[in-house]
């Protein structure tokens, strides 16, 4: 199930909220546990078993690790138990990654190995369980946190299951680490204020996804497969900018909806996006884009590998590892690996000298450079073939076979100009800041009117949902 659907907004959500607030507090986690499984299993009911297996695996691992560690803390068999805890942790991590590999990457590896003459491994063609990339990372972090002493053991199976499959962030993040949410699972105080914030946040996300992302997505689709002789300079940039806006509003809109829904249920999740397109360096861009993923890789891969503490060559290697993994995490295709390495290249360059150099330049230089890297990066990200990526790069960087601009480009510019302008404006903090400066009385009227407006328009677009693709099932 996805948030931006009639089913979710007008059946699932009213029922979930109504029952959640009718039942006494101690039953609320159980209710969430049940509806999480319904949400998860909606597209592929069989995979509920997979989810329950994942919950059990990590629940038991957490209990075992916690048990071994408390034993050693009590001094009984000090020295014996910490290695045992570590062995459980390793087995657990391997099993989690094995599941992720099997469901997400098996076919890619099989196809790749089958390219060797004489070798043929059949592909499985399994449907990717929704959100597996997100929830695998979430659950894996729990036994690690327990092992490191960063989180307490959760003895209550229902509460733990609620954490793993929590529907707001199940399929597209933010990636919530166990330690960030542990206390809220045991005790949270839903309030009118928090619920109202949640509504506003959800509506912002809904508008981003349904009114902007889906809309500009059609512009990218119109150009994505253009032949070299058709793709002009203007057309290539229109399309690349459209996709850059689409992925930002789709993804951050989904995070906004997740954070908003969390608030409606009394949870506080960490922020996932912070106006990435205002960055002046690529390093800054990745601090503002999909923050929870970057944090996860930092805490669970980069730091354990030694981070920057073992000398420059080792740091560069660590960066390479982290960015290969970040790339391939985005989907089972080698283009995503390449996309990750593309970013590793710029990040290393910045670490070596570019950051210092950019600091001395006017801010505009940094902005232009970062946007060029990001927008070109999205072309690599979204094109499935290298040859089509090159068609785009040639057109974008002045070697178009089709010239500067065509009548078709003008048609699309007229059709999408307004939405693109709104999208660009909304990806900057200016609008939010301006709105915050309005007198409170004006906002008091404007906010409910805007909420109603977004609800009405989004419903119209969802009912007419011949075009409502969801980008993140590949993740």
């Amino acid at each position: 199930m996805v948030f931006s659907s009639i089913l979710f907004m007008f059946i699932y959500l009213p029922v979930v909220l109504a029952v959640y607030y009718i039942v006494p507090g101690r039953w609320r986690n159980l209710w969430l546990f049940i509806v999480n499984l319904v949400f998860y299993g909606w597209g592929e009911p069989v995979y509920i078993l997979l989810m329950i297996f994942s919950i059990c695996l990590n629940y038991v691992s957490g209990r075992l690790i916690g048990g071994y560690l408390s034993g050693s803390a009590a001094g009984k068999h000090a020295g014996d138990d910490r290695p045992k805890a570590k062995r459980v942790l390793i087995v657990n991590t391997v099993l989690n990654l094995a599941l992720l590999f099997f469901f997400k990457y098996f076919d890619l590896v099989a196809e790749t190995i089958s390219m060797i003459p004489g070798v043929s491994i059949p592909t499985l063609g399994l449907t990717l369980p929704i959100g597996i990339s997100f929830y695998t990372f979430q659950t894996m972090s729990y036994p690690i946190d327990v092992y490191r002493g960063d989180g307490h053991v959760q003895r209550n199976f229902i509460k733990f299951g609620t954490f793993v499959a929590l529907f707001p962030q199940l399929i597209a993040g933010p990636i919530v680490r166990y330690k960030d949410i542990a206390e809220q699972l045991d005790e949270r105080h839903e309030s009118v204020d928090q619920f109202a914030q949640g509504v506003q946040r959800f509506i912002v996300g809904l508008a981003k996804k349904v009114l902007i992302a889906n809309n500009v997505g059609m512009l990218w689709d119109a150009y994505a497969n253009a032949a070299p002789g058709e793709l002009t300079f203007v057309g290539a940039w229109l399309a690349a900018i459209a996709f850059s806006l689409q992925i930002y509003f789709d993804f951050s809109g989904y995070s906004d909806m997740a954070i908003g829904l969390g608030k409606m249920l009394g949870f506080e999740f960490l922020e996932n996006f912070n106006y990435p397109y205002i960055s002046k360096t690529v390093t800054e861009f990745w601090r503002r884009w999909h923050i929870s993923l970057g944090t996860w890789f930092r805490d669970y891969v980069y730091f354990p590998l030694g981070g920057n503490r073992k000398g420059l060559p080792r740091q560069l290697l660590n960066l390479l590892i982290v960015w290969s993994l970040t790339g391939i995490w985005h989907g089972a295709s080698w283009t995503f690996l390449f996309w990750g390495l593309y970013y590793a290249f710029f990040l290393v360059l910045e670490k070596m000298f570019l950051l210092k150099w950019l600091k001395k330049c006017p801010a505009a230089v940094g902005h232009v450079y970062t946007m060029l890297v990001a927008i070109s990066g999205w072309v690599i990200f979204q094109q499935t073939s290298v040859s089509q990526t090159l068609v785009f790069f040639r057109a974008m960087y002045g070697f178009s076979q089709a010239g500067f601009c065509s009548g078709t480009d003008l048609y699309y510019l007229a059709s999408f100009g307004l939405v693109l302008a709104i999208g660009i404006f909304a990806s900057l903090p200016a609008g939010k800041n301006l709105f915050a400066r309005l007198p409170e009385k004006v906002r008091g009227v404007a906010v409910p009117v805007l909420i109603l407006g977004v609800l009405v328009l989004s419903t119209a677009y969802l009912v007419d949902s011949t075009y409502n693709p969801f980008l993140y099932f590949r993740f």
Partner: protein
Amino acid sequence: MKKTFNIVIIAVFLCFIGAFFILNIAMPDVEFSQQENRYLQQMPDFSLDRLFSGSFTSDFEKYTTDQFAFRDKWTALKAGCELATGKKENNGVYYCGDDVLINDFDAPADDNWTTRVSNVNNLNETLTGYGIPLYFGLIPGAVEIESAHLPANAPADSQQTLVDQAYGMSEATNIDIASALGAHKDEYIYYRTDHHWTSLGAYYGYEAICAAMGLPAPDLSSYDRQVVSQDFYGTVYSSSGFSWVEPDEIETFVPDDGTVTVMDYNGAEPTAGPLYDTSFLDVKDKYSMFLGGVSPLRSVETGRDGPSLLIIRDSFSDSLLPFLTANFSRIDLMDMRYYKQSPAQYAVDNDFDAVLVLYSVDNFATDQNLFMLSM
């Protein structure tokens, strides 16, 4: 102040989603959408099998959008929003002003198109062996002939290019329908809300066919034109969402005076069919009044002297047929989507004097059954 603000926000949100939750349950399910001209998804049956195969959940989700309260109003609102934000098309339909809606057109890949034409050539080769001439006509849509009405720079592909390419390849006798229609492009030759040609458009097509076959065509002024419907909303209207445009008129030129008999070979026993089935004028699908909609094979006896003709058809031929009854003794209409035997064999067995493959460019570019022509 803050507290009131919060409560207003929450109330707006919950009332909106709650109201539609209740409305969707309370309002009776609709079986058929006149607007969209299709059966809507009904509440799916539940079974564990269907649940675990995923078909229950996917049908249920379709049910929620298909049966959403005031569905048609929402799609119209979306279409209006698209226009308001500067778009000139919605769901693949161009809004051309003056109540004119025109379907977009995407040309098929080159090899796909030429394969289609080679099927016509295969049929021609077989028929030539039996001395039966084959005529080949491609009917361009409004997107080509009325392209002046399209929004500036609209990215619709050219149908004329495809017709030229096909005719260049074709070994049959080609019929230049595009020029015949193009010469009258400012007349009411296409429905404004439907993808078909009007009866007037069909007349100009008929003239071109007669010219190619060396037959006389009566003058336009000799027909007794009757307006049989003034509230026809066609297929383009259905997919567009532009629900505020004016309906079309349907005309007949040739009266049904009983001299023409139609036999339908649809099922085991042939049944007598009408030239015009006026019962369709009371439903959404009014164009089907011409011959009464699809049938694998129809045989029309005109009661006149003349040669016989087999037409391998799409729905454009249905409004053309009344004109042709003046020139032929017998006309059969074969629909390759449903007739699953060799058309050449049929032409030979029934001793036809000529065969005509007549398709709209749109259908010729997309139909999956053209390979049957080679059988």
